[in-house]
């Protein structure tokens, strides 16, 4: 089974600024924590007056002013959203919303200097030691995933690699409790 991205917001601006957090819904793709989205208009669905529509970023709609998916505190026992009950955070994701099944999730607005930790599943491309020093928003190559990059991109959302670390899993399995993750600092919006 493919795993989903894991995001740990180590030090982010949005933790202290309510205006940097919104509720969103995606009707075109399922999203993982750590994915990036473009917010468009408010949802027109009844009961979602404060919810914004999220779409994949592209050159056409802009690779700046993006938001990052982070449903950190949700505990939902339906629709594969088992975070907090399933011991493996890599199984958590937000399904596509349909006209009959709505899945509202949280997003936050990245800020320069934010420090985050992302698992490999949250990223497009592959890490190459001493080569891939950044991750950045791209068009169709990455879409909702930040893509491993070999250079700083100042015209799009871009993060600089700080360190290769790991996240801890609570599976209880021997020799299976650490998963590689990457620590980044936001350097361009």
């Amino acid at each position, binding site marked *: 089974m493919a795993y989903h991205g894991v995001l740990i917001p180590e030090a982010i*601006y949005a*933790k202290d600024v309510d205006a940097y957090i919104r509720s969103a819904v995606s009707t075109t793709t399922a999203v993982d924590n750590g994915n990036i989205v473009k917010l468009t208009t408010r949802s027109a669905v009844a009961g979602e007056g404060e919810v914004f529509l999220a779409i994949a970023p592209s050159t056409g709609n802009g690779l700046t002013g993006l938001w990052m998916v982070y449903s950190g505190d949700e505990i939902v026992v339906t629709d594969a959203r088992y975070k907090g009950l399933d011991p493996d955070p890599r199984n958590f994701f937000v399904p596509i919303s349909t006209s009959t099944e709505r899945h509202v999730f949280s997003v936050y607005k990245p800020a320069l200097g*934010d420090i985050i930790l992302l698992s490999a599943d949250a990223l497009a491309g592959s890490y190459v030691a001493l080569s891939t020093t950044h991750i950045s928003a791209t068009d169709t190559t990455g879409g909702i995933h930040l893509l491993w990059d070999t250079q700083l991109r*100042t015209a799009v959302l871009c993060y600089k690699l*700080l360190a290769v670390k790991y996240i801890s899993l609570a599976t209880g399995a021997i020799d299976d409790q650490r998963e590689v993750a990457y620590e980044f600092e936001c350097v361009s919006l």
Partner: protein
Amino acid sequence: MAYHGVLIPEAIAASTIDSLVRSVVDAADVDNGNVFVMGARSTTAGLPEVFEISVPLTGATTLGNLWMAYSGDEIVVTDSKYKGLDPDVRNFYNAAGKVFSAYKPQVGDIIMLTADAILDAYDAGNDLFIVAANSSWELQWSTTNPGTGLTYALLGVKYISLATGGIDSQRVAAYEFECIATYAV
């Protein structure tokens, strides 16, 4: 004895936003109000959350996306860090090799700096800004907005109060600024 720069953060975003504050270290002495480039994490044992810093440079790095030194609450009785015990705040500085605090300026921040925190002398009526300068820890007076790099606009000439108890020596000129540009990279 030369005095050190004094910074009073009157209204800064970092006061309420934790992600704008970090612990840093450098091999040189650093005054409060100095600006610098945030580098990599320190590799020294016991300092995994501390970042190394470097002087701003044009070319190799940029004069934007800088951080500012501010150890506001430290009371340390070694290494010349006597703030809170020495009544003259101008004697305080962040000693080389010692971990201190830094914050990331944001547009709209209002701060006050003494002349010792600024590279050159104030030219009344002409100097309207202080800006990041190449190879300088200190911000530099400017008559114009450079349109690049960390930039503050002068709001007013004020003073800071000293608690020395000396007659006619309890006020030192200081300058109030508003951050008008930070420029990412």
